[in-house]
């Protein structure tokens, strides 16, 4: 497939710059020399099978991991630790302190960073809880909520902080397929309204195409950049279309072997299990 020809943009500086990032866990190298730029308003997706270091890259952007080589900077400032300008939404439900109600959870970072006083934090929390469709559940404790609702709380908590960039680490991976689709739709709607900057990690090709406007493909062991593609033309409604299918096949080809060989069964088998399930789905759909 031919590459799209895009005129080089001028005058806009990237918000987040990853420059030759290599991450290591002891002796194993998680990513090797990964570079990418995220611009303001981007929905930038890191996509790849398990073992490609996409989650590690996100954790490095959040400041939880220090790169062995290279570095990540935001707005020209080097990232050397976690900070409230980059709020993370994790996959795991236990990111919400169980001893806090929905409202207290959303207020928590606002109060901890001393950004707002209690009264204003409460006001803002109520606003964002309503925004993610959880009005009426302010005083519920997390263990009484469903998985999808817990992720909504985490998203409300992150957006209430109005971070420079929102980091999402497979936020919908632990949800059932119906809820996941719902949440993708919701996230799209929130983005349409607010135009925040998003760095999104996923192992699902469909999710990457639907959520993102720009996709960084990573190949595994160690994670290396395979390609960077545009996906701004796709939304949830394009999921069944021929273009969408073609894009899915193309990404699949890029990730699992030579496009010339096509996508043989062997390539799918070789794919790690987590990614394999999605690949199978994209093949048959």
């Amino acid at each position: 497939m031919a590459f799209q020809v895009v005129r080089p943009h001028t005058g806009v500086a990237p918000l987040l710059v990853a420059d030759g990032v290599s991450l290591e866990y002891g002796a194993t190298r998680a990513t090797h020399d990964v570079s990418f730029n995220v611009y303001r308003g981007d929905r930038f997706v890191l996509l790849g099978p398990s073992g490609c270091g996409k989650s590690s890259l996100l954790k490095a952007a959040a400041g939880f991991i220090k790169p062995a080589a290279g570095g990540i900077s935001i707005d020209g400032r080097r990232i050397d630790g976690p900070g409230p300008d980059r709020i993370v939404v994790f996959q795991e439900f236990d990111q919400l302190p169980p001893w806090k109600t929905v409202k207290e959870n959303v207020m928590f970072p606002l109060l901890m960073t001393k950004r707002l006083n209690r009264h204003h934090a409460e006001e803002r929390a109520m606003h964002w809880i309503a925004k993610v469709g959880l009005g009426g559940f302010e005083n519920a404790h997390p263990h009484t909520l469903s998985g999808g609702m817990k992720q909504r709380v985490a998203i409300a908590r992150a957006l209430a902080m109005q971070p420079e960039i929102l980091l999402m680490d497979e936020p919908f991976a632990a949800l059932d397929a119906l809820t996941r689709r719902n949440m993708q739709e919701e996230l799209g709607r929130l983005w349409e309204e607010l135009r925040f900057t998003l760095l999104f990690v996923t192992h699902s090709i469909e999710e990457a195409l639907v959520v993102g406007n720009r996709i960084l493909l990573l190949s595994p062991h160690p994670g290396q950049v395979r390609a960077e593609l545009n996906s701004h033309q796709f939304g949830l409604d394009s999921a069944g279309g021929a273009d969408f299918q073609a894009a899915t096949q193309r990404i699949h080809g890029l990730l699992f072997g030579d496009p010339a060989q096509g996508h043989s069964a062997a390539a799918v088998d070789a794919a790690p299990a987590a990614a394999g399930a999605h690949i199978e789905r994209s093949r048959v759909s």
Partner: protein
Amino acid sequence: MSLVLDPPVRQEYVHVTNTAAPRAVDIPLPLARRAWEQAWLRKIFILVVLAVVWEGLARWQNNDLLLPGFVQTAQAFASGVASGELLDRVRISLAVLLQGYAAGIVAAFVLTALAASTRIGRDLLETLTSMFNPLPAIALLPLALLWFGLGKGSLIFVIVHAVLWPLALGAYGGFQSVPETLRMAGRNYGLSGLRLVLHILVPAALPSILSGLKIGWAFAWRTLIAAELVFGTTGGQGGLGWYIFQNRNELYTDKVFAGLAAVILIGLLVENVVFRPLESVTVKRWGMQR
């Protein structure tokens, strides 16, 4: 007819679902069943059965010196309370106990907070707990008497020893089982060091901390009563253990039982009035413990 199972093709249908689905009607249970659902009633039932068995055994033995019955013990207890002697002893014991318990909690918190935030603190806690946790507090009493003399100082010393290690071990275990995601969420908001401990680790580890507090409380009681039995009193200010010891010497066995009953009652009271409500407004409400 084919041998292959061929399910029939059926008519499709679509319903409009009722938003207000009918709820199950609550059928009131009979009174006896409802009463049996109450945990405190079941527990009182157990206590009554035990008291009856005890009274029966005592009547059968018919020896006041060896085994006074429930009624006799209750009388001794009531007269002890009425004369104020028993309550005085309880007050003295509790005052010492609470001081030692509070000091033990503070020491345990400092140790675990250090262990949670620094590596050398962790090594320190692991080494100290493995050294001192198996050491019975009462075995330190001779040493304590040597250092602090007869009196409150020695008692508090052994109580702190009894509370500190199990509580520190429990709290530290709780800290270690706090999910990594929750820690990262806390650090994401700029929390670190003592603030991370106070805002994330302590509440997240509360189930373990509460059970450590309970174990610490029980250990403190045992240690205190045992220590009072060993060296008793200073200046006529003996506590409950001393009361038990003194009455045994004078062969007032019913008063010995009354003293033991006081220990047990305080234990029950603290469990049901302090720890259980504390659990139900915290860890149970938060869904962290069933």
